[in-house]
C-alpha cells in the first residue's frame, strides 16, 4: 500500500485501539510487513510535529498510543471524566522498589523501606500495578512480585528499561523539603476530579 494511503489507516488503527497497540499487530491487521508500518508511524510523527495536534504518539508498553499533550492536562482534568490515582508516599516508594528490583519479595521491599509494606503491596496488587510472579526458590518459598503492563501504561513507559535512571549515591543528597514530594505537581484537582482555578 502507498505510504500516503497507509499513514491515515495506521492512524485510525492506533486511534481506535483500546490500549497501546504493537506495530506487529497493526501489520497483521493490515496484512503488510512491519517495516511498512514503521514508516507510516514515522510519517505520523513527522506530521504531528509539523502541524500541532491536540495529541501525540506515545511509545508505551511495547506499543503505540495517542495521548493528549501534557500541557493540556489542566483543561482536560476540568472535563472531569478521569479519576486518576493519587499515590501515597509509601505506595510510590514500594512501587519504585518493585519496579527496579523485580522479581522481589515482600521482605526485600520491607528491608529496603524499613517498614511493613503488606497493605501497600495489597493495594498495588488490587490496582493491578503489581502482580505476583510466583514463588522464590528459597526456604519459606516467599511470593515474588513484579510490575504489570498497566504500570507501564500509567507511567507512559515503553518498557522497563525506560524507567528513570536510578541514581547511585555515594553520599547524601541535599535535603529535600518534606512535602516537596508533591510540590511541583499541578494539584488542582479537587475531590470531584474537577479543577478550580
Amino acid at each position: 500500500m502507498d505510504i500516503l494511503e497507509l499513514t491515515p489507516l495506521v492512524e485510525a488503527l492506533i486511534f481506535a485501539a483500546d490500549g497501546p497497540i504493537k506495530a506487529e499487530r497493526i501489520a497483521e491487521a493490515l496484512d503488510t510487513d512491519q517495516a511498512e508500518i514503521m514508516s507510516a508511524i514515522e510519517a505520523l510523527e513527522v506530521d504531528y510535529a509539523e502541524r500541532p495536534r491536540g495529541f501525540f504518539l506515545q511509545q508505551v508498553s511495547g506499543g503505540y498510543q495517542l495521548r493528549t499533550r501534557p500541557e493540556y492536562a489542566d483543561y482536560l482534568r476540568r472535563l472531569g471524566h478521569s479519576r486518576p490515582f493519587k499515590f501515597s508516599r509509601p505506595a510510590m516508594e514500594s512501587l519504585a522498589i518493585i519496579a527496579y528490583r523485580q522479581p522481589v519479595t515482600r521482605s526485600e521491599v520491607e528491608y529496603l523501606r524499613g517498614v511493613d509494606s503488606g497493605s501497600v503491596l495489597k493495594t498495588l496488587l488490587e490496582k493491578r500495578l503489581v502482580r505476583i510472579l510466583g514463588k522464590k526458590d528459597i526456604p519459606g518459598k516467599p511470593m515474588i512480585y513484579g510490575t504489570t503492563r498497566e504500570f507501564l501504561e500509567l507511567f507512559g513507559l515503553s518498557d522497563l528499561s525506560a524507567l528513570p535512571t536510578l541514581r547511585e549515591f555515594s553520599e547524601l543528597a541535599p535535603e529535600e523539603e518534606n512535602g516537596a514530594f508533591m510540590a511541583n505537581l499541578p494539584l488542582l484537582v479537587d475531590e470531584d476530579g474537577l479543577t478550580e482555578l
Partner: protein
Amino acid sequence: MNAGMENYAIQLENFEGPLDLLLHLIKKNEMDIYDIPMAAITDQYLTILDAMKILNLDLAGEFLLMAATLLHIKSKLLLPKMVEEEPEEEEEDPRAELVRRLLEYQKYKEVSQTLERQPRLGRDLFARAAPQPEVLEDTEAGFVAVGLYDLLAALRDVLKESPEQLVHEVNMEQLSVKDRINVILSSLQGQESIAFVDLFSGGIKRNELIVTFLALLELVKLRMVRFMQNTSHGTIWLFPAVVLDETGDLDIIEDTLGYT
C-alpha cells in the same frame, strides 16, 4: 512535652519509617554519612521515640527495632578494641550496614519522587475514553493476562462465603503475648541466635505474627534479647541478652503487658 518534642511528633507523620527519619536527622545535622556520630544520632533518635510514646505501639515497633540497632552499633563502637584473634581479618565498621541501607533507601526514595513527577496517564495525559464500536464486535480473544492475585482473591471470596469447615482455615487460635515470649525464649535456649525472619516463617498467621512481634518488643524492652544484623546478608538476628534458665520460661503477669 516541650515545644521541640511537639514539633518532632508532628513531623513524624512525614516520615515513612525509621530509615527516612534517620536520613533526615543526618542531613539536618550535616553529619558525615560515612562517619555517623552514633552517640549523637542515637540520642536524637531516642528523643524522638520518647515523643512517640503517645503514639501507638506498632508504629513504634519498627522504630524500636531501629533504636535497638542504633544502640547496638553505639555499644560496639564503645567497646575497647580487643586483641584481634584473627588479625588478618579486617573488621568492618559496625556502622557499615546502616550506611548501606541509608544510601540504598535514599536511592529509592529519590527515584520514587522522579516517578511521581513522570507524566501520568489520567493525570497529565489522556487517552481516548471510549473504544470504537467497530472493534468491539470481535471479542473472542480468549483468556489472557489475569494475575495470580485475581485467582487468590477469587478463592478468598469463595471461602468467605462457603459453608462448613473450610472456614476454620481463617479461624485464629488465641495466643497470648506471654506465651509467645516464652516460646521465643525457649527456642533461643541452647542457641546462639535465631534469625528474625524464622520467627515469622512457615505460613504464620497474621495474628500470630502480631503477637510474635509484640512479644519481641517486650523482650527488647525487658532487655532479654538483642537484635543484630549480619552485615553480609542483612539478616536480623535475635540473640539472648541474658543467660536463660533451664526452662527458659519467664514469669510475666499478662495484664502488665496491657494487650489483653
